[in-house]
């Protein structure tokens, strides 16, 4: 059997910038701790397994700049260690509590082993340098890391202010260069949000490819000959790859996909929902229900009260991996026969799906990659740059405005509960431009104040806040975050206009919201404004 197609797997790795030195135990900081424990460590471990076993794997990761900023931050690293140590200690108590229920005690020991392993890798192997771990995997040629926008702003809703879109991209690229010691070839558009003309801004920064949802390609002009089975070249020359819907449905959807299998761990059955909050307090530090990341029951998304059976879960994982590989092969053969060109199936997921939402996701991915690399030759794993090297000739098409969000456009980020964000932030940028026009070459404290203003604006633009308001999950936190950044900007502006800067407050704010502290935001933005004026 000869090669009939390609599989391009992309894991989009992002967390919004959350850092609260003013609180001892901010619940929202757990988001990153959970992601490192449940996703980044297991995924990096399976990548290292491929390296050790000589598996020709290819996997594409985006690591967003705001995530990298948290991963590189000493306070967040320290708090992650604390998160692990508290769980390791707490699980000792759990093992004692469950001594008469061996089935559950065994699962508690298993969870403790998982946290111990994370602790060992994070502290002893990586020396807290998660970015470095991914950089090494990229340097080995096993994974390809692509850049993304500074704070994961949903760019179609900022296109009225081109200069801030350019700043999001420029900070994203500079952050990538610092973290991965090379220039990025690919760019992850937050939420796959695209509008015609955005490709020009990426092209100007040397970007060669990005990814879109299926309809972004299918609704392009002219009609793409090979549908989403081949990338298109935008008029700017940048390639756009479209998502393959079938792979997404199988792996992602809770009702029709693999993760809903009853053998899999039920993450929603977190022990915090059943145990006394006083007993959990040493772990959660709050009197309310705070997920602990510990659960003992199986049931996938269906839910059950049966103890988790790791052997059964692994067996189902193997069956699901077989099924996925088989489907890939069948689809490659069938599309190749119809198209006369090897199709590329682009499977794109949030990294958090593998480990956080689907506990067995990393194990499944490991099996899929090993099977694809060693047990067949119909489908070849590629990165986008490899595909483009092998297939440089592509149709010129202008992709359509699109996103991978609900209904395929901007609805999740522009609706009744969140639309107030945009006028407020549009005006904030106008204020910023006025202040910069008044002080074109600021120095000292004024420079720090204006840089912090830009930082606050970027942080408020994160698509996560609008999305959370839409989804009504941790709505008040998201609203408070945007309001807090707006207040900070207002305060800076009023101090600048009064000509009386509060050094202590500005320095303390810059220390708290310290994302991209190693990037000269004002210099970057000044150059963008200058180029725009020319």
């Amino acid at each position: 059997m000869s090669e009939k197609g390609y599989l391009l797997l992309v894991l989009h790795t992002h967390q919004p910038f959350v850092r609260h030195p003013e609180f001892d135990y901010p619940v929202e900081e757990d988001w990153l701790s959970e992601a490192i424990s449940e996703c980044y460590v297991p995924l990096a471990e399976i990548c290292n397994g491929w390296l050790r076993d000589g598996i020709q794997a290819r996997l594409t990761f985006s690591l967003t700049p705001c995530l990298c900023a948290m991963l590189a931050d000493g306070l967040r690293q320290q708090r992650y260690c604390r998160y692990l140590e508290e769980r390791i200690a707490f699980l000792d108590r759990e093992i004692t509590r469950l001594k008469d229920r061996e089935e559950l005690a065994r699962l508690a020991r298993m969870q403790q082993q998982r946290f111990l392993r994370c602790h060992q890798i994070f502290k002893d192997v990586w020396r807290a340098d998660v970015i470095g771990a991914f950089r090494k995997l990229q340097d080995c040629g096993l994974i390809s890391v692509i850049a993304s926008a500074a704070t994961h702003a949903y760019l179609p809703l900022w296109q009225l202010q081109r200069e801030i879109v350019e700043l999001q991209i420029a900070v994203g690229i500079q952050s990538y260069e610092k973290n991965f010691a090379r220039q990025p070839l690919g760019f992850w558009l937050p939420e796959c949000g695209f509008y015609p003309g955005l490709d020009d801004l990426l092209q100007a920064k040397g970007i060669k490819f990005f990814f879109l949802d299926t309809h972004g390609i299918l609704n392009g002009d002219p009609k793409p000959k090979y549908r989403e089975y081949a990338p298109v070249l935008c008029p700017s020359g940048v390639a756009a790859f479209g998502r393959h819907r079938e792979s997404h449905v199988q792996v992602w959807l809770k009702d029709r996909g693999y993760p809903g299998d009853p053998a899999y761990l039920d993450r929603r059955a977190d022990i915090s929902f059943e145990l006394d909050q006083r007993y959990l307090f040493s772990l959660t530090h709050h009197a309310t229900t705070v997920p602990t990341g510990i659960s003992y029951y199986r049931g996938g998304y269906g839910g059950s009260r049966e103890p988790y059976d790791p052997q059964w879960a692994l067996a189902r994982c193997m069956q699901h991996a077989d099924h996925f590989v088989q489907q890939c092969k069948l689809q490659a053969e069938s599309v190749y026969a119809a198209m006369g060109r090897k199709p590329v199936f682009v499977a794109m997921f949030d990294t958090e799906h593998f480990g956080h939402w689907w506990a067995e996701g990393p194990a499944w991915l490991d099996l899929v990659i090993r099977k694809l690399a060693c047990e067949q030759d119909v489908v070849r794993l590629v990165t986008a740059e490899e595909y483009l090297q092998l297939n440089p000739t592509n149709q010129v098409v202008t992709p359509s405005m699109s996103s991978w969000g609900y209904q395929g456009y901007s609805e999740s980020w522009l609706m009744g509960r969140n639309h107030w964000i945009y006028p407020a932030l549009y005006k904030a940028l106008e204020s910023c431009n006025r202040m910069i026009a008044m002080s074109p070459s600021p120095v000292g404290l004024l420079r720090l104040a204006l840089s912090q203003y830009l930082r606050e604006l970027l942080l408020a633009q994160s698509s996560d806040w609008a999305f959370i308001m839409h989804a009504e999950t941790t709505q008040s936190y998201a609203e408070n975050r945007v309001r807090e950044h707006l207040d900070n900007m207002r305060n800076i502006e009023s101090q600048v206009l009064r000509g009386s800067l509060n050094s202590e407050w500005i320095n303390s704010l810059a220390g708290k919201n310290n994302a991209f502290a190693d990037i000269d935001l004002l210099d970057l933005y000044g150059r963008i404004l200058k180029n725009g004026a020319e």
Partner: protein
Amino acid sequence: MSEPAGDHFWFLLKDPHWALLCWELSPATIREIKEQRGTTEQDAQLWLRIHDVTDILFDGHNSHWYFDVPVRGKTDHWYLAVPAPNRVYCAELGCKLEDQQFCLALRSNPVFVPRAGPSDWVAEQWANIIL
């Protein structure tokens, strides 16, 4: 921000069928609207005029066609059903005189509304990517 309310009018796209119009009127513009209406009423009725400006440089008078939408109630935004995708629209905010003449207060940015399905334009132009 800290300055008094200025004049702003933003046309934001939600999807090929819906858009959001948001505005902020300065006290001077509100005064002007009331003077034009010759009224002292607190909240003069605002109107939106939506122009189809596809493939033209809009000068305020040369749109392909337009339609008017009354802004009901005291609000600073309006969700608009877009008449047809794959067109460019521009909105105007203003009021109407006794004789129904539209008096312009603010004009929005133009917005390109994407197509809602595949293009019927079939053309094969191919190029090589330079990595």
